[in-house]
């Protein structure tokens, strides 16, 4: 067994295989393992989903969504104008007043249970469309996005008739019509995060998916109709930022729920100022992933890979800042590079693929700009090698070493497979570096010592802390940010709070 010297002078054993380089490729070749997509039924053109039906946009403007893995057009969809948004809000208001608020909570819940089940029934088709529209590996959409989306509906379905247990001493009431805007990194999952708690609490919704990934939301609309969800309870208006801002500004919206960049979140917060609109913001992040020298190194390497390269790094809570304790930095970075070299970047529909396509041309350009900035700032860049597909938007997994806390690639959210690596000596230094950005969404800690984990997790100003794991999600668990990473929580019973108003208690 190989041992590594620990910083306190004693030799610490690492795993028995710690001196082995992970090397799969020389033992066997990967054969193609494509997921078929011929059973997928996509229409050529989609309207908005308003009041239970697909309708043509008032002004007739259409947009196109492409598959980022091969740049082929998938479908056309409506571009929402203020007329469309207004129509959707009116439908939602009518459904709220005439139908949804009249329904007993238990029956409301039953619709959500049905939706959850139908997502499960349609799971493979949803996964394939999610991958084609967004570029994420089929393994992730099949094993993470779609099952979790169903789980969120199933979880919140059960809350519908139990809300008084979520808010001790209060009588929770719905807010009314909720405007919801979601990003392109987890289109169906973010839809579930938004719609499930809103409906469980008794609200109706108008949701705008991202302009690069509208398809699973539109497919979800079809599912709602099959499930018999009353018309107007769920409305989907497609379009880009302009459509979103029309929704934010609409006077008959009671609440805005937004997931996206901090930049846009601030604009939304400003736009609703002086109004009675409630809002929750789930914004950007620059997650610190702290590796102490008593961490299980091999597991930590896996965790780092998962933290930054999951979903091509298009994750607001990605562990994009690695902080390694000095004593193990060299060993860890070398293992990390070895592991990176085994990652397969390629066709997202191939089940072997680890890293799929970057979501859009614009996003790929943004990432490339940051790679240039990193090099200009004097950092050392390392990228895995191996072939990339000829067409489509791809970026190799990248790490930067030799970076400083004030570097832009350390301070700013890149939203791609780009990791910066810093070292630290003491736990206090790790905490200071971890907390030293405007963000506070999520982070990781790797250590074998429980007391250290509890202590550091308390000091990290983040809404989620993953200890000896990373990027885990569950409908029962609140998720959301501190500081400029947003406000409010999604998931768990805390995820219900932003969707209710609480009447005053009777107290003696």
């Amino acid at each position: 067994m190989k041992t590594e010297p620990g910083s306190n002078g004693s030799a610490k054993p690492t795993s028995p295989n710690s001196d082995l380089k992970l090397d799969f490729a020389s033992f066997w070749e990967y054969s193609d393992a494509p997921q078929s997509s011929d059973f997928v039924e996509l229409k050529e053109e989609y309207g908005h989903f308003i009041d239970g039906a697909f309708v043509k946009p008032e002004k007739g403007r259409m947009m196109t969504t492409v598959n980022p893995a091969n740049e082929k057009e998938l479908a056309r969809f409506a571009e929402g104008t203020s007329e469309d948004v207004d129509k959707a809000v009116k439908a939602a208001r009518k459904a709220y007043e005439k139908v949804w608020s009249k329904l007993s909570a238990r029956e409301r819940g039953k619709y959500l249970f049905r939706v959850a089940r139908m997502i499960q029934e349609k799971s493979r088709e949803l996964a394939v469309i999610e991958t084609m529209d967004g570029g994420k590996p089929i393994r992730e959409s099949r094993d993470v996005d779609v099952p979790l989306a169903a789980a969120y509906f199933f979880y919140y379905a059960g809350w519908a008739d139990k809300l008084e247990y979520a808010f001790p001493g209060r009588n929770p009431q719905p807010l009314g019509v909720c405007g919801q805007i979601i990003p392109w990194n987890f289109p169906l999952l973010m839809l579930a995060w938004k719609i499930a708690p809103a409906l469980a609490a008794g609200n109706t919704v108008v949701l705008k998916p991202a302009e690069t990934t509208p398809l699973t939301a539109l497919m979800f609309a079809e599912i709602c109709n099959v499930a018999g969800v009353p018309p107007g309870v769920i409305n989907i208006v497609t379009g880009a930022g302009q459509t979103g801002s029309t929704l934010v500004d609409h006077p008959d919206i009671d609440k805005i729920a937004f997931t996206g960049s901090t930049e846009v979140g601030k604009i939304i917060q400003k736009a609703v100022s002086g109004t009675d609109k409630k809002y929750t913001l789930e914004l950007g992040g620059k997650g610190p992933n702290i590796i102490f020298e008593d961490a299980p190194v091999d597991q930590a390497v896996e965790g780092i890979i998962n933290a930054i390269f999951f979903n091509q790094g298009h994750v607001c809570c990605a562990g994009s800042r690695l902080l390694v304790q000095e004593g193990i930095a060299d060993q860890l970075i070398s293992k990390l590079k070895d592991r990176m070299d085994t990652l397969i970047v390629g066709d997202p529909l191939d089940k072997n693929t680890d890293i799929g396509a970057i979501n859009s041309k614009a996003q790929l350009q943004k990432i490339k700009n940051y790679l240039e900035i990193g090099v200009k700032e004097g950092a050392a860049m390392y990228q895995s090698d191996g072939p990339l597909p000829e067409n489509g938007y791809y970026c190799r997994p990248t790490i930067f070493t030799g970076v400083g806390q004030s570097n832009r690639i350390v301070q700013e959210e890149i939203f791609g497979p780009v990791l910066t690596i810093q070292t630290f000596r003491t736990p206090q230094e790790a905490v200071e570096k971890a907390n030293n950005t405007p963000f506070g969404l999520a982070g990781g800690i790797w250590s074998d010592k429980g007391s250290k984990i509890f202590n550091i997790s308390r000091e990290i100003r983040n809404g989620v802390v993953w200890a000896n794991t990373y990027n885990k999600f569950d409908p029962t668990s609140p998720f959301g940010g501190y500081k400029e990473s947003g406000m409010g929580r999604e998931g768990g019973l805390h995820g219900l709070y932003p969707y209710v108003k609480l009447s005053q208690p009777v107290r003696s």
Partner: protein
Amino acid sequence: MSQRVDVLKTYKTYVGGSFPRSESEQTYQIKDSSDKVIANACRCTRKDVRDAVGAAASSFNGWKTRSAYNRGQILYRIAEMLEGRKEQFVGELSRKGMKQAEAEFEVQLTVDRLIYYAGWTDKYPQVFGSVNPVASAHFNFSVPEPTGVIGIISPDEDPLLSLVSLVAPVIAGGNTCVVLSSETNPLPAVTFGEVFHSSDVPGGVVNILTGFRNEMTQSLSSHKSVHGILNAVEDSDYRKLIDENASINVKRVHHVETENYTDSVIESPYLLLEFQEIKTTWHPAGN
């Protein structure tokens, strides 16, 4: 024998545990109901706001890591100190025209309200925290943690009771604060600084400024080290300004809508929850 001349009080601010005058070296007059000047109050500026925010920021870490039990003890201690100085506050409230009986009621209610929140410090994490039954092999729990430095903008109604009703839930939850006191009647707030000072509240946890709201709100609500605003002034333009400035660094804003601070509406753990962040911690559970 000549008549004794009263010793008038010089009203200062309360920042970082001491009682400085305003950096502006200016004051404004506080008058009673018959328009007679009863005192001069400091006219604080953006520099005073900056100093107060600095004090609140540097005391945040120490205050949030106090045990819940200790914070409860300190809030109870504030109530004890107030109980012993009731007469002083009744006198101060009366000078602004409040009836004796009303003033006595307000001070008593203030004491009771402090005790109400003293009892919450070690309970709200249990009420609002959770252990989450995740579907994977992980142990996972969520706890509330304080948001940071909170700017509190006091109304002119019930100058003592409103101040305590706003400050108590904020500090009970481990936040520190900068308070803009009532503009027309800041004297009880300034005197309350003395109560904080003598009641084991660490310096900087509560900072109290007096002056013209319009001169201070801009810098308080746009300051990047302020993480939340608790506003109790009803004015739509004013509210819009605060909301807009809050978007500079994604501040949490809560507007209190009551004007009646004797109402139990304002006594609520949900007010405390407004300035709590929920942190979820995950760990694998296995062999």
